[in-house]
């Protein structure tokens, strides 16, 4: 579904990413786990070409993403970021319906889609007419997810989407994400620095450090891994990780 082949990226001679080879399979949730500056967000942005590689190629659905039309590519990929980035001058419904609308879906179809998506992310229909500033942080991120799903893309890119939320809301959204993913089977690339979140949500975890991919492991393999970076993470997060890994698969 998504494939990185020997991808490197550097700015002003600084290597942000070097020799990345990675394959993301259809319908899986691949978590990019790493510290700030490890290159995980850059990796994510390479997929929808918010960043272009210095060398190497990225294939999306088998096609090189620099040879497909940029706008088409992006409309086929949902994008969710930590700051959400809702359009403050649009209502919730206008935010969610924007991509369908510019894709000329027709008013009635857009309205149905918005209603459907609000329900999908667990928001009441009465929120449709509100403006982003009238929502709580959790509601805002739910709208962000609904907006990314607007035109039903096969791929979702999520950059620490739950990072700025309070622990209870985060837990709630993680749980809902799992349910949603069971139903929708999107191909998801999910960036986080939180191991607990990675274990819970990921089908596989790609551990990154200093611009390099260290290893790719399933949550259970990750916990038992003898890789020094992986075990450093497990140590740092302490006890109770098993249950996180189990909840993800159950």
């Amino acid at each position, binding site marked *: 579904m998504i494939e990185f082949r020997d991808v490197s990226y550097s700015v002003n001679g600084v290597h942000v990413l070097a020799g990345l080879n990675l394959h993301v399979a259809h319908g899986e949730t691949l978590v990019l786990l790493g510290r700030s500056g490890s290159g995980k967000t850059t990796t994510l942005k390479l997929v929808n070409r918010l960043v272009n590689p210095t060398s190497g190629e990225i294939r999306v659905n088998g096609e090189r993403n620099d040879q497909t039309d940029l706008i088409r590519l*992006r409309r086929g990929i949902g994008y969710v*970021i930590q700051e959400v980035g809702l359009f*403050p001058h649009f209502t919730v419904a206008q935010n969610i319906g924007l991509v369908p609308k*510019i894709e000329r879906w027709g008013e009635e179809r857009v309205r149905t889609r918005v209603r459907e998506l609000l329900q999908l992310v667990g928001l009441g229909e009465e929120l449709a007419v509100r403006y982003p500033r009238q929502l709580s942080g959790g509601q805002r991120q739910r709208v962000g997810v609904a907006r990314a799903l607007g035109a039903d893309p096969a791929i979702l890119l999520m950059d620490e989407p739950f990072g700025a939320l309070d622990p209870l809301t985060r837990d709630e959204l993680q749980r809902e994400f799992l349910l949603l993913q069971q139903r929708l089977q999107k191909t998801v690339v999910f960036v986080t620095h939180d191991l607990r979140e990675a274990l819970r949500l990921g089908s596989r975890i790609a551990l990154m450090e200093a611009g390099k991919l260290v290893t790719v492991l399933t949550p259970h393999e990750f916990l038992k891994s003898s890789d020094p970076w992986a075990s450093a993470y497990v140590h740092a997060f302490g006890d109770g990780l098993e249950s996180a890994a189990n909840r993800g698969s159950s």
Partner: protein
Amino acid sequence: MNVIRFLLQNRTQVLELTGEHLWLVGWSTLFAMLIGIPLGILIAHRKQLNKPVLAAANIIQTIPSLALFGFLLPVPWLGDRAERLAILALTLYALLPIIRNTYSGILGVDPAVLEAGKGMGLTESQLLFQVELPLAISMILSGVRVAIVISVGLATIAAAIGAGGLGEFIFRGLAMVDNRVILAGAIPAAVLALLADFGVGWVERRLKPR
């Protein structure tokens, strides 16, 4: 009271000069918007251009208005008609606040909003017209407001080169050493400035994103 009697006695001329004044301010503001807003958008997107463009607009602003009118007087086509010249000079003065506010308005749009928009596959023009401009509009309009208020004041100087407007009264009053005549020009000009400021402010509030 004397001033009011004078204004009433000369009301046809007051209205005529006010009309001329509005004509000068209206056209110059329109031209300044047509040039300044696109230029402001351009320099917000092409960062390497912002210093030279803003510097040029700043320099224009520092030229004394009387001198600018004088400089432009010998220019062929322009110098033929004093209004043309006055409109050009007023346009130049109105540029700075409009360019600067458009520039800061567009730069003030939350980067996260732009990134999300780009990531969703909005084209550059969709991003501009659906996101950047609506979010920057009240900032841009407050630049226009400042430009209008400046122009109403500066347009009085245009009378010095024979472009008409309320400045006629002011210069005549100065020559005659008659305060009534000066005020007959100055008061309507002040009222115009206040009305324009209020009017654009009203539009600004109407267009403000909720």
